[in-house]
């Protein structure tokens, strides 16, 4: 059994940067990655804005040194890049020196290729290589291969927009229980016509920059991203004399059991998830210094989450902000993206501003942090909520 779950490495690629340093620079300089979509041909191009990564698939393939006969979806490409960064950042040279697993999260999987070649498959043999790349586990298998993880525990979680938070949660539990010494956890999702049109049918896509926790919020911007963290047991940290970036201190998952897609008005599931996370951490609400909110800027989420935050923290709601205005909503990757932002907040004692906010919401009087703020931070809470009532909270801390 391991008492602590140490984070010893991080890797990320998002609309606001191709690595951890770039992401942090964008965060503290208020630099958004939201634009019109350029790499996907869609009729909705003028109706939506997205958080898109600059690199083309070809460029990503080149970075990974893949030959042209590869069958990587963009999800797999982004995931492999971020996961490799995390391993490097953790200073790991021999991945199989310790029992190492991989838990990835995705909702899109290989859908980007499926939607491209859906009918072509029937007539063009050259496209057939992507057929097996469709299912969600395929991107994870490829990332494991890229990292050299063999004969080990490798799995994929897909619980919509809370997926990566859940991957981190499972990873932490596997370390704590001693099933693994080290586990790479995170998530990856690329933009696709499928998700663009899907969220469009739900009428929750904003036609302009998303504005979390604003009274006049119009919906979310979809984003693409991948982020992975290396979690290690006390044993590995001691033996390898590892630098610990932060600890996964608490976690909780609960179900809203209210509606297929919408959150309950009072955020029952979200409240339960935050409660459980505090319990696991052995914390009281006052131990939380900053909440990195899910804050997608949909009418429903921000109201439900805000109410849940008030239910947990009462009159003493800590500083909170959503970073979705920077990256867009990166779906299954969001929990890992924001895990890294939470760790960076702890490392630098910084709270990121909630961009694009203008008008206070009518339903309550809590206001997100609007300016970059320096403050000593001990613990950060990160929320991720998804369809199917899936609510997850992870607490990151400087202490074991």
């Amino acid at each position, binding site marked *: 059994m391991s008492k602590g779950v140490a984070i010893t490495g991080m890797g990320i690629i998002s609309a606001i940067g191709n690595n951890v340093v770039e992401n942090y620079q964008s965060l503290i300089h208020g630099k958004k990655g939201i634009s019109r979509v350029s790499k996907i041909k869609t009729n909705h191009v003028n109706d939506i804005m997205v958080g898109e990564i600059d690199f083309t698939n070809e460029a990503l393939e080149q970075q990974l040194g893949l030959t042209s006969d590869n069958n990587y979806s963009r999800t797999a490409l982004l995931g492999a890049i971020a996961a490799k960064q995390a391993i490097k950042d953790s200073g790991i040279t021999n991945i199989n020196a310790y029992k190492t697993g991989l838990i990835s999260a995705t909702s899109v999987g290989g859908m980007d290729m499926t939607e491209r070649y859906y009918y072509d498959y029937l007539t063009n043999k050259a496209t057939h290589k992507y057929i097996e790349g469709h299912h969600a586990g395929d991107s994870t298998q490829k990332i494991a291969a890229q990292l050299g993880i063999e004969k080990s525990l490798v799995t994929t979680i897909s619980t919509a927009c809370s997926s990566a938070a859940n991957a981190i949660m499972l990873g932490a539990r596997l370390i704590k229980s001693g099933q693994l010494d080290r586990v790479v956890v995170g998530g990856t999702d690329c933009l696709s016509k499928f998700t663009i049109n899907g969220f469009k*049918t*739900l*009428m929750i896509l904003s036609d302009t920059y998303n504005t979390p926790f604003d009274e006049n919020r119009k919906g979310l911007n979809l984003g693409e991203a991948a982020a992975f963290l290396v979690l290690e047991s006390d044993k590995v940290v001691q033996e390898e004399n590892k630098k610990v970036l932060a600890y996964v201190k608490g976690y909780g998952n609960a179900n809203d059991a209210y*509606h*297929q*897609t*919408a959150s309950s008005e009072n955020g029952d599931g979200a409240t339960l998830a935050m409660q459980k996370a505090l319990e696991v951490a052995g914390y009281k609400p006052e131990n939380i210094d900053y909440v990195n909110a899910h804050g997608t800027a949909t009418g429903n989420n921000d109201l439900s989450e805000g109410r849940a935050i008030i239910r947990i923290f009462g009159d003493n709601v800590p500083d909170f902000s959503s970073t979705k205005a920077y990256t867009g909503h990166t779906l299954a990757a969001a929990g890992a993206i924001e895990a890294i932002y939470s760790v960076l907040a702890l490392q630098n004692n910084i709270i990121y501003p909630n961009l694009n906010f203008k008008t206070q919401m009518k339903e309550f009087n809590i206001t997100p942090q609007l300016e970059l703020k320096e403050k000593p931070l001990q613990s950060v809470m990160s929320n991720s909520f998804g369809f199917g009532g899936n609510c997850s909270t992870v607490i990151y801390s400087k202490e074991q």
Partner: protein
Amino acid sequence: MDALKQELKENLIEQLNLEDMTTEDIANDDMLFGDGLGLDSIDALELIVMLDKSYGIKLTDPKEGRSIFESINTMAAYITEHRSK
């Protein structure tokens, strides 16, 4: 107007998979949401697409649907006034 109402009932049953219902089961002034037929927010989104596809009416805010989709009567009245096909 009566023909439109009948057509709406048929569309409603088909679009929303109200398998066990017939058009006779839906009265013109039945509440479609809540305690009436028990339709929900996803059904409302389905109906918004139906307005667009069958009658050329585009709603951009799902909240607009609330009063329009109150009953078959309100739907028929709105469509008659705003239809472009």
